[in-house]
Structure formats: C-alpha cells, structure tokens
C-alpha cells in the first residue's frame, strides 16, 4: 500500500486551483505514466478519441499508441489481458466503458485478477487498476447505470476504491496505480463534471483511510461516491433543525477503515448508511453488520440504510430520477434516527 501521507487541500493560503473530477483522474493517469513507463492504458475508444467520457483525453497524443490502446469489445480480454500484462512486468490501467461490464468479465475479475496471486502461492503480483465508471446518469438504463461495488466485497485480493471528490480521485488513483495489488476504482459518471480543489503539487492518498467530510456529534451518515454530496446537503438541512451530522466517507471498501467507523459510532451512537446501489446485497449491509458486531452497545438507535431502488434501473430518464436517495430522503432518516 502507498505510504505517502495525504496532503490536505491548503487552507488560508494561496487559492488552490479547482478542476473537475474527470480532469483529476486524467491528471493522475498522465502523471503516473510519466513517472513509470510500465504504466499503460487500455480500453474501448481510449485512444485518439479520449474515451467515451473523455477521461483519457490527450494521453494518446502524449504517450503514443503503444501505451494508450484502443481495444475491441472484448471485456474478458480487457480484464484477463490486463492480468496477463500485470503478471509479466507491466502496470495496466484498464478502463471498462461502464462499471456494469465487469459482469462480462466476471471470472476474469473475481477468479483471475483477484485470486491469481494467492492461488499461485503468492509467486506473482498483479499490479493493475480497473477503472469502472458507475452510477445512474442520463438514462443509460439497467445495464449501464449500476453501482456494483459490493460485488467485489467477497473478492479478497482486490482493493475497492471509490472517490467522492476531485481531490480524492487524483490522490487515490495515483496510489492505486503504484500499488502492487489489483484495485477496482469506481468513478461515478454523474460526478465527472464536479469541480473541487486540487493542488498543483503532487500528492497521494493512502488506500483504506476513511475521511470525515463533515464533523458532527449527533448522527453519523456513512456515504461514499456521489452520495457524499447528498449526505452533506442533508446535513445542512439537519443543522437547520439543530441536528449535528457527521459525514464519514470510507473512500472505498477494501481496505476498509473499520477503526474510523467504530470511532464515529462510539461518538454519535446513531448511524444512517447510504449508497446508490439497492439495499439488498449492497455494501451498506457489510458496514451495518460490522457495526452490529463490534459496537452494538454504543448504538442508541437502530441502524438505518437509505439506498437506491431494488429493481433494475429503468431506462427512462423520467423514472431514473426516482431511484437514487435524495438529500431529503436522507434528512428524514437522520431526523428519525436522531429522535429515536
């Protein structure tokens, strides 16, 4: 795991530039490709076109066709080929066009990328990053809109990283690329345009450290990815009613910062867990279970999960808007949890 410590965005100093979440990701890739010639990118339309969401813009021009590779529509090759390249001295960044497509390479993700090292007696490392644009945005439908991060929870061997801000995205992606283990890196498509402070200077953020996005003492909301922002909005709504909300962003699911979770629960005694994926089988269950195991006696109210709809995500933009928890949904859950 990366050992560089996090650089907090400078405060009270010269203003830090603001760039988008997608630019932050693009910069992380460019800097790491510059730094280490073993790093290369492959995916559908990542070359001259710059990726369907523009994430690989300019990389092709800068690093050439050998290191920025347009692939066919062959997801088992994308992931399995990435593993093969990682086993033989390279450090691939593989972009799937949509996170949902990890199912097209299910065995390559679960059975090969995650297990190869362990099942071959730890004789190899598999230093690869699988970039996974996820989430509901723009009516892309049931097969292009999910947040399948929980699917990788049982895939011991693979780290799971989910940044919620441009700052986190850049710092975490750089650590992921430098890490010798496979990392599934989930980027919410609905945040690509989101701007935030990202220093000019180089920094990395270690994998597996939660971040308190807002400190508070009454109720904890555990949120990641795009829902961090809805949680922060909900916290403002709650503040207006005198409820002091802490928003904890685990910034990923493995390594999971259980200590930070325990700490916040011990502090507030009340917790709402939220994610865009449906409740059943979502990663909120794992976090809820850990809390119920390790700090049940600190709980002063039942655990609440506020999650996306359980059904497949409808294609219709009109219906899509109903599927994701809103700040208001969260605010209601916070109020009830505080009042319990």
């Amino acid at each position, binding site marked *: 795991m990366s050992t560089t410590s996090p650089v907090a965005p400078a405060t009270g100093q010269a203003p830090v530039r603001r760039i988008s979440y997608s630019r932050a990701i693009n910069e992380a890739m460019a800097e790491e490709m510059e730094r280490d010639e073993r790093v290369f990118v492959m995916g559908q339309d990542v070359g001259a076109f710059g990726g369907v969401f523009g994430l690989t813009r300019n990389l092709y021009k800068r690093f050439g066709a050998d290191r920025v590779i*347009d692939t066919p*529509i062959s997801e088992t090759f994308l992931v399995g080929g990435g593993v093969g390249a990682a086993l033989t001295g390279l450090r691939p960044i593989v972009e799937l066009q949509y996170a949902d497509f990890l*199912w097209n390479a299910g065995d390559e993700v679960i059975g090969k990328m995650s297990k190869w090292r362990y099942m071959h007696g730890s004789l190899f490392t598999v230093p690869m990053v699988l970039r996974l644009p996820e989430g509901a945005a723009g009516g892309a439908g049931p097969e292009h809109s999910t947040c399948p991060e929980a699917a990788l929870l049982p895939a011991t061997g693979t780290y799971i990283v989910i940044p919620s801000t441009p700052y986190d995205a850049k710092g975490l992606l750089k650590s992921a690329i430098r890490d010798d283990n496979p990392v599934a890196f989930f980027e919410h498509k609905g945040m690509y345009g989101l701007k935030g402070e990202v220093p000019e200077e180089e920094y990395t953020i270690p994998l597996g450290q939660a971040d308190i996005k807002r400190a508070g003492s009454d109720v904890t909301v555990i949120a990641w990815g795009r829902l961090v922002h809805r949680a922060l909005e909900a916290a403002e709504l709650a503040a207006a009613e005198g409820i002091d909300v802490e928003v904890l962003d685990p910034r990923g699911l493995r390594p999971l910062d259980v200590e930070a979770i325990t700490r916040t629960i011990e502090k507030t005694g009340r917790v709402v867990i939220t994610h865009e994926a449906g409740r059943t089988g979502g990663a909120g269950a794992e976090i809820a279970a850990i809390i119920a195991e390790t700090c049940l006696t600190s709980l002063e109210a039942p655990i609440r999960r506020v999650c996306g709809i359980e059904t497949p995500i409808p294609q219709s933009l009109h219906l899509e808007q109903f599927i994701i928890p809103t700040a208001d949904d969260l605010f209601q859950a916070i109020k009830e949890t505080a009042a319990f």
Partner: protein
Amino acid sequence: MLTPETKIAIYRMMYLAQQWEMQLLRFLDDGQVSGFYHAGRGHEALEVASMMAVRTDDYLLYDHRGCAHMIAKGMSMVELYGDFLGNDKGSTTGLGAGIVHIADPAHGVLGQSGTLGGGHVLAAGAALSIKIRKTDQVAVNFFGDGAANRGTFHEGANVAGAWKLPMIYILQNNGWAISTPQARVTAVEHFSERAAGYGMVGVTIDGMDPWLVYETMAEAVERARTGGGATLIEGMVNRQRGHYEGDPMTYRPDEEIAAAKALDPVPATRQRLVDEGVLDDGALTELETEVLAEVQAAAAEAQTGTLPGRERLDQGVYA
C-alpha cells in the same frame, strides 16, 4: 421471390423507417427523448429487406443501430415512439424507454441486450428452443462489427453450427465501433470468414442493396427452416451519422462521411424502382405522401401518452 410487389414493399418500408427516424430526431432535438439514440441512417436496406423475408412468428434480437429492423418486423410505430418518449404508449409502457429495451412478443421481437453481444447466446437459445419444439421458426440476431468480437459470438455460433440450429446472424458491418475502425481491432476484412469455423454458411454482401439482401436472407431462412442450419450474413453498410446523436465524430474524415452520405440506400432504391420500371416518380411520390401521413399520425398518437408515475417502478419485477 423478389416480385415487383415485394420490391415496392421493401422500398416503402425503408422510406417509412427513414421518415420515422427523422421525426424521432426532431423529438430528440426538442428534448423529448430519454437517453441515447444511435441513428440507423445508412443501414435501412439491410435491416428492412432482411426482415421482410421472415415471418411474424420468427424471432428477432435487434441491435441498437436504428429501428428499421423492428419496424419491418411489424412493430407499431406508435409503440416505438412511445418507447422513446418514455410514456405508456410505448411497447414497454414507459419502463424501458428507447432502444435497448423495446420488445414485442406478438411480433417475435424478443428485446435487446444493452451489453452488446448478449444477443449472440440468447438468440442461439431461442433457436435451440425452436428445434426442441419442432416448429419451423427461425431466430435472427443483429449486431455490429464491434459486437462481433465479443466471446458470446463464439459460444452462440459454435452451438448454432454444431446443432444445425435455425439461426441467422446478421452482422451490420459499418466499419466502426464508436471511434474504433474495424482494422484496428480485427485482422480479417470480412467477418464472414469466421463462419466456416463454426459449420455455418457465411456470406458478405452489399448491405446497401435491398434486393440482394432480401434474396440472401430468403435463402438463409429457407435453409434454417428445412434443417440446413445456421447462416452468418455480413452486410457492408455505412453509418451516416455519429455513433450516437451528439457524437462529435472527430475521428472520422469529412470525406468519408460525405462518401457515406452519398451512398444513401433510400434514394438509391427509389431510383432503382424507377430505372427498373417498377414504379414511376408519380406513384412513388404518392406512396411517400401516404407514408409520411402514417408517420405523422403515429407521432401525434404517441405524444398523447402519459409518463409513468413513481409507483410503476416496482411493478412487474416478478411474474
């Protein structure tokens, strides 16, 4: 048999599909359409003429490129518009919304896999079902040169060949998968070269020539119905517009786009009808006027639909 009536019917359907799409693009411009649309301009001859050679009870797994195959298969224009408008006039009464998840069991339209290439194996399963049930239906699966490289093609085509399934794979080769030209990701020029390796008949044809498409398809259908097994038809076509509406198309030389547009199969087929003496300009204009009225009526009807409410979301998940 390619009678004059069939030729007229094919042109009529091509023109209708084109006009249907033009009206859809207007809906899109007006911001009334949910999600993405991948225009089918340039693919009409292949999609229409092949579907005119099958029956209502034959199965279709369409692809995302336009809607001409579905229209030619008999789907209602109103339902198709309703699907894009996301309202209850749609085939999925507002739940699907747009291409990817249109369906019509009564016309054998089984739907589409949004993960491209998913249809390769589903269609093979439908073809196996035909064989087990001993009917004389056929199953047709449309896909592009990009989706041809999914592993599912290998698995579907292999059983289709091994078990002589009544299966027809129609590959719409427009040379592009979004920004990626075929030659960058595929060694062979024609995917039909892969057919023999599965024990399928494979042919590459000019997909802009609807007469040829119809005859090739009729032959494949006959083969499938009579136990002769599967066929891969690769139709060479041109994608006239962007991959999706809004695509900047930075990757494609202007001359190539201009050349593609010059080869528009709809006016070319019209001219052919005149040249072959099947219909004169006057009769064609009449036919077109009639079609336009149908399209406009369908568009108007579809717009009377209502958007589904939130309560619709958890309906029908389980049977």
